[in-house]
């Protein structure tokens, strides 16, 4: 199972890396940059919301923290090569993770809905602070980042490759988690937290770790976004709609799967950008978002990938049962296969 996985991953990365060399237009690269941003954020949200089963509604707060951290570091500076912000990304990620640590400690001692309340409140706190701490953030006047000194011809490329790197990192992390004891712990927490604790899983430690990593990655994406836009305002850097987008994409593709969030991001982000552009005065994007969300939760609660998998597994089992019923020994037990696939759900 692992060799084909590595091959698949390798093909994916190779495609992403070589894509720009096909002479793609600027507007398409621009679209890809945003899609990659959301794919990375959805994948990182997946760690907490998908695997651990704790729906965080405040990730956008960390997106904003990442954006403003980068803005602060590079305040009023002129860049030499333009790559400096990228080199400092890990520092931004660390800041995000460090802020997330105590938040997780306070809020994850309780159940999922209180966790959601705390995270959504955190989001609004960050936004309020962004507005009020003028000396740090510029308040409602916004704050500028240094203009990237890249040539117009290749402007999007550095951002593109950095985002590819972040996405691969996040997916690699997810992949490794799924295969490790940590991953099993997370899934067991999601299935039944009390039992998990009874069995000896270090519930709090695991949850807090997942949250910190998740928000650290989100902060890094926020920083790249800020650098790309060159100017940020509190209401855009800390926007509840960013969280909703991440959650929706993960749900659409399939929570707790490796490729689900990426699929969700590709479909929704490119769809949204292109539809908003093509259809002009379509005043219904908020309604469309909400309806898609409701439809997914009610009709396709596990998301696209797991649903497809389930259907295929069902069909395979039927065929196998039919075939085995013809054998003298009777139908084989499928429990082991089912259990394994439940844990490795989406382990494509």
């Amino acid at each position, binding site marked *: 199972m692992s060799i084909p996985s590595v091959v698949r991953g390798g093909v994916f990365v190779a*495609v992403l890396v070589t*894509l720009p060399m096909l002479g793609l237009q600027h507007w*398409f690269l621009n679209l890809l940059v945003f899609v990659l941003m959301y794919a990375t954020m959805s994948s990182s949200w997946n760690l907490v919301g998908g695997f651990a089963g704790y729906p965080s509604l405040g990730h956008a707060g960390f997106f904003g923290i990442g954006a403003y951290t980068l803005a602060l570091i590079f305040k009023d500076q002129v860049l030499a090569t333009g790559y400096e912000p990228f080199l400092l990304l890990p520092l931004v990620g660390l800041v995000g993770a460090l802020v997330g640590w105590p938040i997780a400690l306070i809020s994850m001692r309780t159940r999922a809905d209180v966790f959601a309340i705390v995270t959504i409140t955190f989001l609004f706190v960050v936004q309020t602070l962004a507005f009020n701490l003028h000396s740090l953030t510029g308040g409602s006047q916004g704050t500028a980042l240094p203009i990237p000194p890249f040539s117009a011809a290749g*402007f999007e490329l550095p951002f593109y490759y950095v985002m590819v790197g972040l996405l691969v990192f996040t997916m690699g992390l997810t992949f490794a988690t799924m295969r490790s004891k940590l991953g099993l712990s997370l899934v067991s927490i999601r299935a039944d937290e009390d039992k998990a604790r009874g069995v000896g899983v270090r519930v709090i430690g695991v949850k807090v770790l997942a949250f910190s990593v998740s928000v650290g990655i989100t902060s890094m994406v926020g920083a790249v976004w800020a650098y790309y836009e060159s100017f940020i305002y509190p209401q855009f850097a800390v926007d509840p709609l960013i969280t909703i987008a991440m959650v929706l994409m993960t749900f659409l593709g399939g929570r707790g799967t490796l490729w689900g969030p990426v699929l969700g991001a590709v479909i929704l982000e490119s769809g949204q950008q292109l539809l908003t552009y093509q259809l002009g005065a379509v*005043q219904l*994007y908020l309604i469309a978002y909400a309806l898609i969300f409701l439809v997914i939760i009610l009709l396709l609660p596990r998301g696209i*990938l797991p649903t497809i998998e389930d259907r295929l597994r069902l069909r395979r089992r039927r065929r196998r049962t039919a075939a085995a019923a013809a054998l003298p020994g009777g139908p084989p037990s499928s429990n082991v296969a089912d259990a394994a696939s439940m844990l490795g759900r989406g382990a*494509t």
Partner: protein
Amino acid sequence: MHQSNRLWRRGGVALVVAAMALTLGACASSSNNAGASASPSAGKPLVIGASISLTGDFADSGKAVKRGYELWASQVNAKGGVLGRKVTMKLVDDASSPTQVVSNYQNLINRDKVDLVFGPFSSLLTVPASQVAKRYGYSFLEPAGGGPKVFAQKLDNLFFVQPAPVVKSGDVFADWILSLPADQRPKTAAYTELDDPFASPIAENVRVRFEAAGIKTVYKQIYPAETQDFSAIMAKVVTANPEVLVGGTQNEDAYAQVKTLVQLKFNPKFAFFSNGANSPLEFPTKVGTQNTQGIMSAGDWFPGSTAAGSADFTAAYIKANGGSADTIDNSSAEAYACGQILQAVAAKTGKIDNATIIATLHQGTWPTVLGDLSWGPDGAPSGTFNLIQWQGGKLLPVFPDAVAKAKAIYPKPNWGG
């Protein structure tokens, strides 16, 4: 069959994603020659692209901008277009989002290859969008991005289409106050400022000038955008008892401040609100017509203006959209002015490409419905706004004298008429 199922299930997603990307990418690189040709464009339509907020927080003003652009396009086409070319506006929605606005201008410029672009609504979206335009050498006439950060970028391709940078809205009021004889000027001042890029800087500019002239600041408060309750703030204003109240406001908070002052029964001798009080229809509706008398504000276009093309603009607007001169949003006039400037450049130079526009507009003055406009090297216009005052339920310009239609009333009469 077993094989293909496994392929679909396991590797399928990765391949699907990659395939989608490749196909879209192929379309993207081959659409290179679908757009404008390299030959001279006489007779070809002149396509002007702009991203406007048709949904989201800026939607109402965005729609007013759209009406302005479209009105100009139909007017100019009725007269034969620009240099014989028919004008086509390609307007797209950015949902009031800076992410979308960047993508929109990328698409307009690089995918649809429009000839020219106009700016979006709001400084918040103008800054990222102007960077995209700059990268590809497009001129950027924009009707609604006038905050200081816009000009701090020092872009030579950007032109803010209003008489002056937004922070100067209060300066015309300061000019007027300081032009009064010394014994009639106010001695004390209070400043209530919205924490917003366009509100508090205006009031701060006024404060600096007033303090330099010896007008004492007895109270100053900057309040956040979510403030809904002004009782506490205005109560402190009343206690401080200023002779002039300078409000650096947007619309809602201006209405709330006036209503609260009425409730508290406090009447300053001079009252200025940078926004809100310049809405010809909304302000009297929200605070009561009888309470508007004597309140001052700043504006560029106003009903009854005699600036270049204003009468035509007003008539055409009413014909296309109904209503009356009082229901015309300033943003429509500002958008219309962008078009007028293009026409003027074409008439003066015989050309209408980006480089010509950028080179030409930095010199001279250009007549529009907003008055005569001219720009400095960073896109900041070098004129002044008009000081307007409510008299008899109507907004009238009272200063500078060149545009004044009435004499200013002062001190401000008491609430209720």
